[in-house]
């Protein structure tokens, strides 16, 4: 891989180490983390950085995920730049404190390695864990490869700490497919990151210019106002991501499309819609199908929360049919989460595109080229007016 702008070195690292590097170059003051399964090796890499004297951060090795998050909430309220990491059951055990961070408007950045939830007893890959916490007020960014993990973390701090936003960001990467996959990753220098990510003044405990208080709020009027402002900041974060990406590209020479990436969508008649590591596989299928003369494109969603409705409407406006790949099940609603979101985003907003949902990749099941080829073939059939099944469980086949 060529060395690009502001890269200090290129190293072949796992997704977890890339996440640790992502945190490292942003110089967090406090890292609160539960060090045991379902934690990933992120924690080992971070403690190694500290032991080697490369990272000057306090690390709180908590006795459970709930207190890991509580410790970063306390530190962030006190003005520290904070980082955390978890997955699966750890995320659920963190839940009580996880939901407090957005309400307190704290710019915490963490990573989640997307995995199954128990029971049954597995922590293999899927999006099921993170989908259970989509409506908590955290910004959720999903990535496709190891480089994107590191870059998304740097951008996450910029968005989180922006005075107009002040919300926590969870950078989500697929367990095993990315967490333990090794790829060459450009690691930027700390100086370059410092230039891109200056420290912002914000309300903190004991801060000189402003009072910070996280208080019990009983009156419904006040509650509504807090919620309204939170929602407003979430809306603003969509545009913020676009701006931050542009600046990131100027500093580091890489960009990912902001809220979503459109791949070969210019003249696409049908499209695939997915999120996470299998977007890489989908890209290969799109190329192959294009060679066979099928006008197919790919929309890779990056920002799941807030949901980028405007960008989705624009990206899909000329498409005749859509094949959605979901790596999670929205229990009680026939399909998966992406499908559900897309229907709300498109239908009733002038874009009633026929679409089919494919539930795939549960419990670490591979989402292979043949599976995605099938999605493209059937989506082509839908565009041609053929009968189709709304929800298909590829995971069962």
């Amino acid at each position, binding site marked *: 891989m060529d060395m690009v702008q502001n890269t200090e070195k290129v190293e072949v690292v796992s997704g977890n180490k890339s996440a640790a590097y992502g945190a490292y170059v942003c110089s967090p003051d406090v890292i609160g983390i539960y*060090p*045991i*399964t379902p934690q990933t090796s992120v924690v080992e890499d971070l403690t190694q950085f500290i032991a080697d004297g490369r990272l000057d951060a306090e690390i709180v*090795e908590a006795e*459970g995920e709930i207190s890991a998050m509580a410790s970063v909430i306390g530190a962030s309220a006190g003005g520290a730049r904070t980082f955390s990491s978890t997955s699966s*059951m750890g995320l659920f055990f963190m839940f009580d404190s996880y939901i407090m961070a957005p309400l307190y408007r704290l710019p915490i950045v963490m990573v989640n390695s997307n995995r199954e939830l128990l*029971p049954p*007893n597995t922590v293999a890959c899927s999006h099921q864990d993170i989908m259970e916490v989509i409506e908590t007020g955290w910004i959720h960014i999903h990535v496709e490869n190891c480089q994107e993990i590191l870059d998304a973390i740097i951008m996450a701090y910029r968005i989180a700490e922006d005075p107009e936003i002040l919300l926590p960001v969870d950078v989500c990467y697929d367990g095993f497919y990315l967490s333990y996959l090794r790829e060459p990753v450009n690691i930027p220098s700390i100086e370059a990151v410092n230039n891109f990510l200056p420290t912002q003044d914000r309300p903190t405990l004991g801060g000189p210019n402003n009072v910070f208080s996280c208080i019990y709020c009983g009156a419904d009027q006040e509650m509504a106002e807090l919620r309204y402002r939170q929602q407003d900041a979430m809306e603003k974060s969509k545009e913020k991501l676009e701006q931050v990406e542009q600046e990131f590209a100027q500093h580091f020479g890489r960009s990912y499309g902001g809220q979503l990436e459109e791949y070969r969508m210019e003249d696409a008649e049908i499209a695939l819609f997915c999120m996470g590591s299998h977007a890489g596989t989908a890209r290969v299928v799109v190329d192959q199908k294009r060679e066979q003369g099928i006008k197919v494109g790919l929309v890779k969603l990056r920002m799941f929360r807030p949901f980028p409705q405007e960008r989705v409407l624009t990206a899909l406006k000329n498409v005749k049919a859509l094949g959605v790949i979901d790596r999670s099940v929205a229990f009680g609603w026939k399909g998966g989460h992406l499908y559900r979101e897309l229907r709300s985003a498109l239908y009733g907003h002038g874009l009633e595109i026929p679409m089919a949902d494919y539930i795939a990749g549960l419990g670490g099941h591979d989402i292979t080229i043949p599976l995605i080829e099938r999605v493209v073939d059937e989506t082509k059939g839908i565009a041609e007016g053929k009968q189709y099944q709304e929800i298909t469980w590829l995971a069962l086949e």
Partner: protein
Amino acid sequence: MAIDQYLRKRFFPHIWCAGCGHGIVLNNMLRAVDQLQINQNEMVMVSGIGCSSRISGYVDFHSLHTLHGRALAFATGVKMSQPNLTVICPMGDGDALAIGGNHFIHACRRNMDLTAIVMNNRIYGMTGGQFSPLSGTGITATTSPQKTIDREFDIISLSLASGATFVARTTAYHYKEITNYIKEALQHPGFSVVEILSQCPTHFGRRNKQGDATEMLQRYRQNTTSIGSEAKQKNPELIERGIFRQETAPEYCAEYAELINRAQQS
């Protein structure tokens, strides 16, 4: 009935390492159930997560394999809804006393008729050998390469102080005691704690240079003694085995039924 009648053979081979003490506990726990002639359909096993907690998958009882640390909380619900069933909870030391510590002390206090088995290997086996609140000081674990400085809980004192009405301890070496104490515990009408020192050669043994499983079992023979023995007087370092408390007190489900009665009368 032969012991293997109580096993769900389709889940074998089991996940335990060769020499793990948890298998000895399983074997002798089943002997206790067998000797008491408890109907399999009236036994409920509730466990959390860990190597020890895997036991619930291997036995042909009603079973709930729940969340790490929460076995007693789930079991409380089971017993409240079906007080006639016999409920047993095998737990690891981390499961019972780190993440599940709060449930543990409150279960002792409440005195509901449940049997808690703590399989104490002084380490987190399943997740790769991190130290637990039972490791004690001077122990090498993956999370303590320079040895632990944390002091350990004494499960017996903790259970006694928290109000458990049956409290016993033995080791994987003393397998007959396992059967006997579990039998007593299952028959005891209140909350019972049976601590069983159970070797983890893979993580605890290897990292702390305690040799293989046989050596670890020998160690249990050498460094434990019966309660109040002469050996203990000579060498206070020895760990005592035996029944530390066996007394009756109002049982929670019975009290609850009584409460309902009172409320309905008034």
